[in-house]
């Protein structure tokens, strides 16, 4: 059967950061303990004029640069987020217009907590593989919210990544060898309609939620493809903090070395729908031809999507055609707590 795969990808992370110390100071907490506990030191936040739509557009334009195609070629555009600026009015329609995708574009927003973007990749993959479209774009992007003083405030961050899938052999930078999902009704984290910030079930978010699904999906994809952890050069697991992905890797038999290159959470926080996708874009930025990448996302509620990609020679030709994930990670300006709250108030 004909191969399909990623033909372009792009990242975007806003410039602003707040350090864990600046948040801990306000709530009288011990920053060192929190940093060690969460495995992160600071997080990204949007500028006052940024939101999920603008982050998506910037990532989408970077993806088009790498794919070397114009927006008009995009036949479907799905955007996963839990911070779509409107409750009713699609982010995807604005992004489609901003990349000049044209009227003949299938478009919708998706929502599945932090895995809405990886679910969008699966939807696009189906359309490309079935030849309903030539190219499709999937984006995972968020300006995630947390209530003040909540533990999530240290990690809830902003950023996103876009992926263009196609099936023209010479254009593919990473073949999609396999994808599947692991889903179960799990009450670990949610946000009811009209509420500004989410609720979570504390420690329950660990073993029965994140671990069960990430391990479940990953073991399923390894088994169905007769693969083992040592077959992979890189592994990306959803990053709600810096600890969970390393624990999941260990339980599954992956090494820290396989996970480290995609572990962007320690420097920018958890970008929710953007999290595992920014992990993948960081890996694509540095991978060589012929390498294998495993990606497993996690969305509360709950589910995990697993993917196996194999890079091609074409990847090395497109890596420098747009800003890299690390360029955005390194570009930063720190703000204090009150400015951070001001910026966040603009995206509610």
């Amino acid at each position, binding site marked *: 059967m004909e191969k399909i795969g990623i033909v372009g990808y792009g990242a975007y992370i806003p410039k602003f950061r707040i350090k864990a110390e600046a948040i801990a100071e306000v709530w009288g907490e011990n920053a060192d303990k929190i940093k060690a506990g969460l495995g992160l030191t600071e997080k990204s936040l949007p500028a006052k004029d940024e*939101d999920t739509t603008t982050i998506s*557009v*910037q990532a989408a334009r970077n993806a088009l640069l790498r794919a070397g195609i114009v927006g008009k070629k995009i036949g479907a555009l799905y955007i996963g987020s839990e911070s779509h600026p409107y409750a009713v009015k699609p982010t995807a329609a604005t992004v489609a217009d901003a990349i000049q995708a044209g009227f003949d574009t299938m478009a919708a927003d998706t929502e599945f907590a932090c895995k809405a973007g990886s679910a969008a990749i699966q939807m696009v993959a189906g359309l490309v593989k079935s030849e309903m479209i030539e190219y499709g774009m999937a984006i995972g992007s968020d300006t995630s919210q947390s209530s003040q003083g909540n533990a999530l405030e240290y990690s809830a961050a902003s950023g996103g990544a876009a992926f263009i899938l196609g099936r023209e052999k010479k254009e593919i930078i990473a073949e999609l060898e396999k994808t599947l999902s692991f889903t179960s009704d799990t009450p670990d984290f949610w946000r009811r309609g009209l509420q500004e910030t989410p609720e979570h079930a504390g420690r329950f978010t660990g073993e029965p939620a994140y671990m069960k699904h990430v391990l479940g999906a990953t073991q399923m994809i390894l088994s169905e493809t007769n693969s083992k952890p040592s077959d992979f050069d890189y592994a990306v697991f959803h990053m709600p903090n810096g600890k969970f992905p390393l624990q999941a890797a260990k339980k599954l038999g992956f090494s820290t070395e396989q996970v480290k290159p995609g572990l962007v959470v320690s420097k920018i926080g958890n970008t929710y729908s953007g999290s595992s996708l920014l992990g993948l874009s960081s890996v694509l930025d540095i991978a060589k031809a012929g390498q294998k990448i495993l990606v497993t996302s996690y969305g509360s509620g709950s589910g995990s999507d697993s993917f196996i990609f194999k890079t091609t020679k074409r990847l090395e030709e497109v890596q420098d055609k747009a800003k890299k994930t690390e360029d955005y990670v390194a570009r930063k300006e720190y703000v204090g707590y009150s400015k951070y709250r001001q910026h966040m108030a603009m995206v509610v």
Partner: protein
Amino acid sequence: MFRSTPIIRWRKYQERYNLMGAKCEKCGKLHYPQPALCTCGSSKFIAHKFKGEGTLLSFTDIGSGPEAYAEHAPYCLGIIQLSEGPKITSQLSDCKLEDLKIGMQMIATFRKFYSSGEKGAIYYGTKFTPKW
């Protein structure tokens, strides 16, 4: 509260989202935005997309902006000469006054312009930021 009708804004979406300007069919002059008449007197234009790169000609900072932009203040405002020629006035994102210098290179970025209050529509478009 600032209010604005979505329809008038909607007509300018491509101009704002993608720097869609115009090229005079008669003399070839590039315009942003499209004028009613070219300096040569012709009213015939074809759509032209500007690349989104330019040079900062002048700038200032706004402490308290007009109602629509009040919540974005303080922010910087600049005049940018696009690499294709036309000049454009734009808000400048991700920078403070001390980051700016006349003659520096600027690039386009997609940003939120304003929203019509908490219940109204959100408007987006192109702003400029120092090239990095």
